[in-house]
């Protein structure tokens, strides 16, 4: 793997900044996605009212999650499906393996599922001699590259067409040209064969409808439909917070999701699946297994400050507007979830601010993420709250805390403030070049390496004010 997942965040960022083709690919794609979203939102009209409705629906569900989960599970069972609760990653793998073993399955055809990424299902299956086949084109690409997704909607956003052609050529054992028709033709032919022979189909779940026990898949490639229809067994991996109460609420969130994700009014395929095939139906799987996954989500439940993040409908809009993601891409975050939402939920899902506590600093707090979020998660505020929490947990450096204590000491008192700034004026002299500073110790050098820093004025405004006053009185 070429992503340095085990290195620390700073090193991963440095590595990412050197990856020119990745950065170009991400800039290009996110700009298009962002502009498409803005256009779609404008055409829709009353966008903020729709956002408010999405927020209300999702907040209500999260606040009453136990009720809706029970309703959903009951209705899945009533429709002939089986329901499992999986607390942690291992539990998910255990349940999947039980189903695989029951059917002596050798291959699992998958459509896109972020939960599968969360629990590293492909590797777990591989280790147990089971072949996992990614049928989503982008997931297939990164599976060939042996990389994690770098964007929750566009997992291979960091790859350009030449890199994709190289991967396909290697897989095909012959040269595949890098034009879109050739790439598509290869992927279609290879994947379609696999759909038809897979023992089990596994999908994610964009939304789950409590009132009917249905799961909703949103895709543009139709692979979700094939994976959930052709194999005899259908496994659904569902985050426990994916629920909407009923079809009317589904309409609201389905208005928000594709528009926010890609700028589409609706995706090419929206599949609503209610149980396995019933007697008399011509197609569909014989069994449907819905695995409801926690994997850290309950850490956020009941947390006044952070529960809001569970509203997320995984549209990726926050990725596409984030100036930091734009420069470093998804892999640098080191988590399955990158971008602003990833920087918020990764430390929380893992309940680990020690190892993941640096992610919330990957933001200039520009609030573009909060503005783009279709369910109004105040992402930039949550990032600041996580920084506060990290400090309270004792994981910030004592040097940093000392610096802010010094800041309080001098800037918290007008007399000391004046003294500090006057001292600053004299202390800066060795670094002064004309009206700006160059070089200096860290952290100042972080700035001055690439920018001039203004020099402290000889006469600060408060002193000039006295002169202005004197002047106006004399007049």
């Amino acid at each position, binding site marked *: 793997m070429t992503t340095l997942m085990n290195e620390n965040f700073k090193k991963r*960022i*440095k590595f990412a*900044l050197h990856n020119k083709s990745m950065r170009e690919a991400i800039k290009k794609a996110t700009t298009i996605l962002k502009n498409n979203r803005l256009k779609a939102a404008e055409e829709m009209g009353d966008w903020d009212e729709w956002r408010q409705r999405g927020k209300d629906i999702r907040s209500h569900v999260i606040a009453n999650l136990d009720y809706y989960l029970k309703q959903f599970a009951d209705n899945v069972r009533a429709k002939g499906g089986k329901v499992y609760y999986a607390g942690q990653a291992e539990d998910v793998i255990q349940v999947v393996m039980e189903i695989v073993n029951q059917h002596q399955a050798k291959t699992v055809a998958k459509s896109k599922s972020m939960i599968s990424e969360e629990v590293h299902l492909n590797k777990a299956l591989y280790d147990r001699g089971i072949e996992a086949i990614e049928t989503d084109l982008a997931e297939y690409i990164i599976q060939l590259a042996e990389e994690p997704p770098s964007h929750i909607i566009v997992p291979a956003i960091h790859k350009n067409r030449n890199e994709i052609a190289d991967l396909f050529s290697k897989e095909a054992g012959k040269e595949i040209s890098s034009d879109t028709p050739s790439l598509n033709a290869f992927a279609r032919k290879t994947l379609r064969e696999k759909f038809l022979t897979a023992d089990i189909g596994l999908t994610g779940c964009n939304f789950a409808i409590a009132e009917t026990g249905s799961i909703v898949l949103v895709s543009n490639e139709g692979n979700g439909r094939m994976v959930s229809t052709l194999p005899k067994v259908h496994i659904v991996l569902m985050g426990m917070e994916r629920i909407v109460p009923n079809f009317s609420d589904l309409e609201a969130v389905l208005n928000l999701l594709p528009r926010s994700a890609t700028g589409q009014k609706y995706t090419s395929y929206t599949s609503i699946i209610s149980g396995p095939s019933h007697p008399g139906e011509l197609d569909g799987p014989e069994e449907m297994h819905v695995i409801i996954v926690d994997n850290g989500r309950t850490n956020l439940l009941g947390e006044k400050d952070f529960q809001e993040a569970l509203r997320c409908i995984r549209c990726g809009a926050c990725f596409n507007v984030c*100036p*930091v993601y*734009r*420069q*470093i891409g998804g892999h640098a975050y080191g988590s399955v979830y990158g971008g602003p939402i990833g920087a918020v939920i990764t430390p929380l899902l893992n309940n680990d601010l020690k190892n993941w506590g640096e992610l919330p*600093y*990957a*933001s*200039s*707090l*520009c*609030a*573009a993420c*909060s*503005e783009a979020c279709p369910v109004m998660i105040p992402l930039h505020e949550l990032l*600041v709250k996580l*920084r*506060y*929490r*990290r*400090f309270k947990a004792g994981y*910030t450096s004592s040097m*940093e*805390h000392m610096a*802010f*204590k010094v*800041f*309080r000491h001098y*800037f*918290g*008192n*007008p007399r000391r*403030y004046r003294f500090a*700034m006057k001292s*600053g004026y004299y202390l800066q002299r060795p670094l002064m070049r004309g009206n*700006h500073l160059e070089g200096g110790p860290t*952290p*100042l050098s*972080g*700035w001055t*390496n*690439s*920018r*001039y*820093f*203004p*020099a*402290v*004025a000889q*006469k*600060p*405004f*408060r002193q*000039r*004010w006295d002169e*202005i006053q004197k002047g*106006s009185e004399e007049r």
Partner: protein
Amino acid sequence: MGGSLLRASLFITCIADNFFPKVGDSVVKILRKNGVDLDFPKDQTCCGQPAFNAGYWDEAKDLAKGLIRTFEKSEYVVSPSGSCVAMIKHDYPQLFAGDQLWESRVKELVSKTYEFSQFLVNVLKIEDLGARQQVKVVYHPSCHATRIMEIHEEPIKLLHNVKELELLELPNADQCCGFGGTFSVKMAAVSEEIVEEKVRNILESGADIVTGTDLGCLMNIGGRLEHQGHSVQAIHIAQLLAEGMEA
């Protein structure tokens, strides 16, 4: 100016006070010319945003309390920064939520505090300062000013009314400049890449001057422009407007 004067206090911000004092001169000149009885409470220091954003909320609270006390007697508080005003109006209530001693005092400060261009256009109802400047300008809409303070049209109206000033379009204007306070040193390498993109967009616009409501951003953008040897200048909107007015 007839009638009673409108009384307001200037919150200069620590950046303007110490690094860009001319911006303060400009605000004074513009507000006084337009009939504001302006004072400058000397006990003011910093709004505390650097500490707040870094997660040091106790430290931020101390500074916030100082600022609240300083402007307790003011009728209006005006500041040449969308970001510092956003800190007061948006983050102080959060910082003091549930604090019975301070909540009402925060509320009072929040209700009377304005960013400079909003104060001019929305309170004083002034859009034309009678200024004249033959320059090509782009406006950088700072993130906190636009997304939190919802300052959109006010600076544009003021700039449009400067005679001979040509307001050009800034590509990808809504993109952050990469300042972000401590972000600019904590994640300096990323910050550099972001500001470089901003600079390229400014250069593409063909402007001589980039202006805006916030000195943090302008210090970042201007520092990069100068470091890279470009002649485009970053100037706060108050200064740009004041320079076009008669003395």
